[in-house]
């Protein structure tokens, strides 16, 4: 069977067996931590329903919420910008920085900036961009991309980080102690926080009622970046808008528990006003989101609060690693978002799913992830990206199954396959037989048994 991009990369990931086992177990531990906390909250399922309803309300009332946010943010003395796509987003940021002669930007993690390829753009325009989230910083020093949306460097072991820091930060040789390495990274980052010209962050929620945004982190790096600098930029997708502070309370109860199995993120910060003498810019980005709103079967992907729980629970993600997906967001939500971005380009991820629906059940905002993947599979053929051999298999099944007589005589012949020479059954085409024995056909099918034992019956 010809391979999808995901299947190929997943196979390669499995070749380093120890690493694959470690990856699976590490993320399963996160899933277990999540279970422990969520199961301690009796109203968890109600919270999920409420969170879903708030999101569906918000995404179906976007124009009003955006207007309200803009009005309140401006009243607080902030600037509000709108970007319809990635290009506008990059240019707005570039212009703000240029206007203030900013040369160095400290940034806290934002998947939106990955989506819009901000760093490359700014660096090409002579701006020094420093990622301040520890995982992101490690990746930046390695010139690599996140493999998980919440634990971006989860696939990297501490020995490798130690080596990297030796090289880039001049840390002690062969010291891989995580606490030591974290302290060294902090020391280096402190300098960046102090001598940058602007601070930037994404947002977890944007509150229409107050015109402020909420940023959830565990390292406090967003707060450092935003407090040390007078020029502050916060950019987020319009799907982050929620009506009120009260509604944020529902999400903060769900977010960290689902993401990392913590009761709440260490820092849950509200940014709503500029520093004295400084500027606070908000950039509301569409970049395809309003189009998704128009797609009934896929609209609920906009509920996503990027907690990563669907990745941790996904048995395929855990065993194939984040880089086996061709879209920059991996796992169940990434399969879906990739297809929404460019179905032809990212269709290679759709095979990475057994339709076990664990993702749909774990998702704190009830995105129907597995169900949407099923829908995408139905569309691959018309998109011209379906697997031809799978089609042939489906055609074959349809042909036989639609003809009971043929099916029944096939059942009678089938046991002969049990005696076929092994090389006929286990060749390169037979992917089932690669790691598994084939099932043996029964000598007498149920159908024949029934006819034999119920002669007078129909």
């Amino acid at each position, binding site marked *: 069977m010809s391979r999808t991009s995901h299947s190929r990369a997943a196979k390669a990931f499995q070749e380093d067996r120890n690493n694959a086992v470690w990856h699976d177990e590490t993320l399963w531990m996160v899933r277990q931590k999540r279970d422990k906390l969520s199961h301690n909250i009796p109203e968890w399922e109600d919270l999920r329903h409420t969170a879903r309803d708030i999101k569906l309300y918000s995404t179906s009332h976007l124009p009003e919420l955006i207007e309200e946010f803009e009005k309140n943010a401006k009243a607080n003395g902030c600037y509000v910008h709108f970007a319809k796509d990635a290009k506008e987003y990059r240019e707005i940021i570039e212009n703000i920085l240029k206007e203030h002669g900013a040369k160095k930007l400290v940034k806290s993690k934002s998947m939106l900036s990955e989506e819009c390829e901000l760093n490359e753009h700014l660096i090409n325009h002579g701006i020094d961009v420093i990622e301040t989230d520890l995982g992101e910083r490690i990746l930046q020093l390695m010139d690599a991309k996140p493999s998980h949306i919440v634990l971006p460097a989860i696939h990297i072991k501490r020995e490798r980080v130690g080596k990297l820091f030796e090289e880039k930060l001049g840390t002690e040789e062969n010291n891989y102690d995580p606490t030591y390495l974290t302290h060294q990274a902090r020391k280096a980052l402190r300098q960046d926080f102090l001598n940058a010209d602007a601070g930037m962050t994404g947002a977890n929620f944007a509150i229409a009622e107050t015109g402020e945004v909420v940023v959830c982190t565990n390292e406090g790096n967003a707060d450092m970046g935003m407090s040390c600098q007078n020029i502050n930029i916060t950019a987020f997708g319009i799907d982050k808008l929620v009506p009120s502070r009260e509604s944020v309370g529902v999400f903060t109860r769900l977010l960290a528990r689902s993401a990392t199995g913590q009761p709440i993120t260490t820092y849950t910060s509200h940014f709503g006003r500029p520093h004295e003498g400084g500027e606070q810019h908000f950039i509301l980005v569409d970049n395809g989101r309003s189009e998704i709103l128009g797609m009934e079967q896929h609209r609920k992907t906009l509920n996503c609060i990027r907690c990563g729980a669907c990745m941790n629970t996904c048995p395929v993600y855990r065993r194939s690693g984040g880089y086996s997906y061709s879209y920059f967001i991996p796992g169940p939500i990434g399969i879906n978002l990739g297809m929404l971005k460019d179905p032809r380009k990212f269709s290679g991820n759709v095979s990475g799913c057994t339709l076990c629906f664990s993702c749909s059940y774990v998702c704190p905002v009830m995105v129907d992830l597995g169900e949407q993947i099923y829908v995408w599979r139905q569309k691959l053929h018309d998109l011209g990206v379906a697997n031809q051999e799978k089609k042939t298999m489906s055609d074959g099944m349809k042909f036989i199954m639609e003809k009971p007589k043929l*099916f029944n005589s096939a059942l009678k012949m089938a046991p002969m396959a049990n005696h076929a020479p092994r090389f006929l059954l286990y060749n390169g085409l037979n992917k089932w037989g690669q790691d598994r024995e084939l*099932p043996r056909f029964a000598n007498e099918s149920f159908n024949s048994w029934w006819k034999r034992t119920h002669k007078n019956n129909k």
Partner: protein
Amino acid sequence: MKIGLFIPCYINAVYPNVGIACYELLKSFGYDVEYPLDQTCCGQPMANGGYEQDSRKLAERFEDLFSDYEYVVGPSASCVAFVRENYSRLLNHECKTEKSLYDITEFLYDIVKPESFPTPFPHKVSVHNSCHGVRELGLSAASELTVPYFNKIRSLLERVPEITVFEPTRIDECCGFGGLYSVEEPEISACMGRDKIGDHMHTGAEFITGADSSCLMHMQGVIDREKLPIQTIHFLEILTGQKI
């Protein structure tokens, strides 16, 4: 009361014993059971592979064969789930069998409610909570949800004398079969199968049992290849005391 017996294609071909167990069990509770001939496949393999239009005709025939029965019962959770979740949409009209169709587990647990089964099974078994059984039919409490624990398969098995029942640590993680998934991503599929079997083996069980022969078929394929010291058995074969 007449029950229409639904025997999915692969049970017909590979596991007729499971079909026979299902039939005999229903008979033993006094039901009048009919097996409409000319059944083939519910269409799930094509649909999960991305060709649900290839299952439309099969849905029509299913509806023709079974719509007159008050109850339709089948021994395969994922096939039952497929019919229930998709047929009305595929046929563009309300599908009668969607309401009358039960997986045998549900039928026994919710309708028949037997207090015990006669034949002892003096063995240790580990219950395979299959994805579609758990998350589409609700045969057990899904581990992701915050709901009180229950498990219909386990509860039925515990009514068998002398049996010891376990569940694996990753209580309802997928075994990796996924229909055409197993040939589209064979390495991950087999890896998931090996991991799952390992988890079942850690319980100390001699058998892996469950309500989905398709998962059991996949795991048995791995067991045979790796020559692992455990076997699969459909839970109906235990309830009816069929020979191992």
